[in-house]
């Protein structure tokens, strides 16, 4: 895999997240109804950061959960088992809440489909809104994001990688080719 271009820098990611934090609050005036759920792995870190940002802006402590969607994938038997199933932890009731579902990159929409199914097994939220850092297009399901950091048109064979300080020791978004 070769890197083609660095398209977003660390400072841009930071500003994007602040904007997204504001947008979430703008759209959900009753902030006590909001809960954040990040999809493992990078979505979970982005969710953590958003929680802090929202606390900074609004002074409220929003419940935060993480979701591993592996067991809800639609391709488990064609790709073989994923030996790593990370933690799913939603330690609060999502009934009647506005769930902000968070991931790093929105691509085919299949991950989001799996996440929605899993969330519904935890309870019946009032609504679910999708927040992603990057929307790169090529949807295979009728799914769209409510909050987008940046739209990046890509070719299907390309890969968009979000690198975050917490696990990658750097902070950037790159386009790479397989």
């Amino acid at each position, binding site marked *: 895999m070769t890197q083609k271009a660095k398209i977003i820098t660390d400072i841009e990611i930071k500003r994007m997240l602040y904007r997204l934090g504001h947008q979430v609050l703008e759209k959900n005036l009753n902030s006590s109804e909001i809960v954040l759920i990040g999809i493992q792995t990078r979505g979970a870190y982005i969710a953590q950061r958003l929680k802090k940002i929202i606390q900074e802006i609004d002074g409220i402590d929003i419940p935060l959960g993480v979701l591993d969607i592996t067991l*809800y994938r639609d391709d488990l*038997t064609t790709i*073989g088992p994923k*030996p790593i199933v990370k933690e799913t932890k939603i330690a609060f009731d999502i009934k009647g809440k506005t769930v902000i579902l968070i991931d790093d990159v929105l691509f085919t929409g299949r991950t989001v489909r799996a996440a929605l199914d899993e969330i519904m097994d935890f309870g019946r939220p009032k609504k679910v809104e999708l927040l992603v850092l990057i929307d790169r297009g090529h949807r295979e399901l009728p799914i769209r994001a409510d909050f987008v950091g940046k739209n990046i048109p890509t070719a299907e064979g390309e890969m968009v990688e979000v690198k975050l300080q917490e696990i990658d020791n750097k902070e950037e978004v790159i386009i790479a080719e397989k």
Partner: protein
Amino acid sequence: MEKWSKKHLLGIKDLSRREIDIILELSASFKEISKREVKKVPALRGKTIVNIFFENSTRTRMSFELAAKRLSADVVNFQSSASSLNKGETIVDTIKTLEAYHPDIMVIRISSPAALYLLQKYTKASIVNCGDGKNEHPTQALLDMFTVKEKLGTLENLNVLIVGDVLHSRVARSNIFGFQKYGAKITVCGPTTMIPYDFENMGVDITYDFDTAIKKADVIIMLRIQNERLKSSFFPTIREYVDKFSLTEERYKLRKKNALILHPGPVNWDVEISSALKEKVHPLILEQAENGLAVRMGVLYLVGTEKRSL
């Protein structure tokens, strides 16, 4: 991304350390599922699992059945006492007949050791061993290891003491294979008639002195005395057994402070373990049952989603 490549789970002996790690890590994630409101994930949706028991079992079968159901698989049970084996059907014929229903996984308990290696020729399904005679009971060892790792934080270089009817115990053998892969020093302890001499060749220490052995053990696995053995010539009188090999209050005091007491359950109180210790040791034994469910979910998930060339 790492891949799981084993089609069957026939014994701990065949597993690498890394493969055991994968099962234990997965099981930790699966444990959480049983605490959800909806205790079910769609990982094995559309898969058929047949639990085939040529030997009686209630708890292991229930545990496997529940594990399969929590992964959304369809499960049917075959119990030989209630089946055509009484009509003279052979075991191979039974497997062939069940194969006609195109199951994806066969969970099998059988009384002849290593019979599963033969039976895999007659089915395309993955086979999971849940007890083959005196040979192995891999998911029991995996749940023991899972429990130890969860409680002690590590599996490395432990002193493991196994007490009781080691000779007839597939649990003992699977645990020996498993813990040894992590550098454990294993000691087995029991009546002379119930300790196989060839265990020395497996690098296992043999002792008949529970009082001394318990002092250095980090993990003490008390084996269950099967009722039918009580009458056999292997077995001393119960009083003699209790005197020498039961975990009594006095012996319990000799243990290391953090030593874990495990038992595959159900306990014959006042035979393997004194009922006076019930409050102290029973909670962990019950947790083993909970962990067993998680471990079996992990195993079924791995063999059930293993990529096949069809």
